[in-house]
Every structure is written in structure tokens, then in C-alpha cells.
């Protein structure tokens, strides 16, 4: 092979390599933003918590059920009805953790989920302040 031909081949190889690298760069340089899904989960978490706190379950207001669960240790209605309501409100595959605490001590927990978007809302009942927390993963 002549010297000139070898050089041309070299140039072609370099250009081809540059092209391949360019294509890979363009493909992987586009960073997909996670802001929108996070924003949506934030809306879902806040809306769900606010909606839950307003409803009556078996003709009992939600705050009364929380107080009953705390004072009489009777959480049967919450344990029975809440999972159904939450799973109907969210998509089936969505994991969540709902916690109710008083003075930073959780006395009612539903679901399991370690990290995600969280929403808090305090409820006052009979002089006690309960902190409700919804975490969606």
C-alpha cells in the first residue's frame, strides 16, 4: 500500500471514530429531568393527605378515628378501611407509608416505603395535636 493511501485510510478511520464518539455523546448527553415526575408525586401526596383528612369512614370523621386509635387503642376501622381507600386513590403499584404520630411518637403506621415525597398535616382533636404524614415512593 502506498504512503498516501495509508494516510487517507488513517484520516477516514479518525473521521469515523469522531463520528461514532459524536453520536454517543449526543445520545447520552441529554439528561432527562426528574423534576416533573417529582412535582407530580408531590401533588399526589398533598392531595391524598388533604382528601383523606376530610372524609368520614363508617359515618365517623377522620379526626375522631385518629383520636379513637390513640386514646382507646382501637385502630380497627383505620386498619380495615384505609388500605382500600388509599390503594383505590393511587395507582396499584404505588408504594406508600402513612403515619400518625403524637408528640413525635408514631402510634399508627400503614404501608412500607423508605424514601420518596412526603406531606405533613397537623390535626387538632380534644386538645391533642396529631401529626399525619404521607410518604409516596
Amino acid at each position, binding site marked *: 500500500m502506498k504512503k*498516501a*493511501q495509508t494516510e*487517507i485510510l488513517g484520516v*477516514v478511520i479518525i*473521521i*469515523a471514530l469522531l*463520528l461514532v464518539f*459524536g*453520536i454517543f455523546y*449526543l*445520545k447520552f448527553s*441529554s439528561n432527562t*429531568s426528574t423534576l*416533573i415526575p417529582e*412535582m*407530580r408525586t408531590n*401533588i*399526589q401526596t398533598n*392531595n*391524598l393527605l*388533604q*382528601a*383523606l383528612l*376530610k*372524609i*368520614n369512614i363508617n359515618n365517623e370523621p377522620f379526626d375522631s378515628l385518629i383520636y379513637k386509635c390513640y386514646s382507646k387503642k382501637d385502630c380497627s376501622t383505620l386498619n380495615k378501611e384505609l388500605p382500600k*381507600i388509599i390503594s*383505590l*386513590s*393511587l*395507582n396499584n403499584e404505588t408504594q406508600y407509608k402513612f403515619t400518625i404520630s403524637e408528640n413525635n411518637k408514631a402510634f399508627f403506621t400503614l404501608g412500607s416505603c423508605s424514601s420518596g415525597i412526603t406531606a405533613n398535616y397537623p390535626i387538632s382533636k380534644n386538645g391533642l395535636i396529631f401529626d399525619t404524614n404521607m410518604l409516596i415512593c
Partner: protein
Amino acid sequence: MTAHQSTKAQLEMNETIIVLFIVFIILIISIFFYYQYSISNVKKTGEETLTTSSSVLLSSIGSLPDISCNKENCIDTIKLLAFINQNKDYPIFDKKTITIEQVYPQPKLDKICTPILYNDVNFPTNCKKFILHKNQGSNPKIISTPISLYYPQNKQYGIGKLIIEVY
């Protein structure tokens, strides 16, 4: 010019032509890939814009004065039915089907809520959906959020699911 020089010049000319040919091929391939990338990028940006506007709608629909409760963050079902009856349209509803499904209390019938069903004693369990805006299309992208619903006739709250299908 001798015959030997002429053959050499022709060979060099051929070489130049081949190099130019290869360079053009590479250029055409690059342009092709660049346009493919640009087109997919434009499509992606379009989809992202639609998703963003849907997410904005997801958060703002509950505060539309036409359908929202007066003070709290919820949707008043009587206002919702009046809004549906008026066939009002907002530019942000474009290319979307917007539905509110009742979740709790759980509806017994899978019907579309109408003023007639609203006046029935069994409301809200006698119907399932409120359709705010309807649009036809294929392969919709669906996003949803739970939402608080207010039933003024018995002054109680329920939970609904706001579903936005983007085409």
C-alpha cells in the same frame, strides 16, 4: 507530457475522487444521523411540554373558581356538574380528556354523573365519572392524582381521582 506522467496523474485524480466520495458519504451519514437526532429531540421536547402542561393542570384544576370549593382545596360536585353542563372550555384543556372518578364513597354503578343522577337520593354512589373535557385520540399518556370532592347536599367530603389523558 510523457505517457508515464499521464498515468500517474490519472491515478492521483482517481485517488482524489475516491477520497472525495468517501468524505461525501461520511458527510451524508452525519447529516442523516444529525437530523434523526434533531427530529427525536423535537418530538421529546413536544412530549415534555405536554406532560408539563398536564402536570400544571393536575395541580391547578382544583383551584379553578368554576369548580373549586370556596375556601378549601377541593372540588364542589354541584359546581362541577354546572361546569360540565355549560360546556365551558379552557385552552389548557386542548388535546386532553379530563375525567374525575369517584373513589370514596365507592360508586355502585359505573355511570357518567349527570344532573338527573345528582338529584337522585342514591347520589354519590349511583354514578362514577364526571367528564370535564373529552378528546379523541390514540395511545394517550395518562396521569392522575387523588382529589378531595365535596358533596353539598349532605355536606360531606369524598375522594376522587382526577385523570388526565394527553394525546
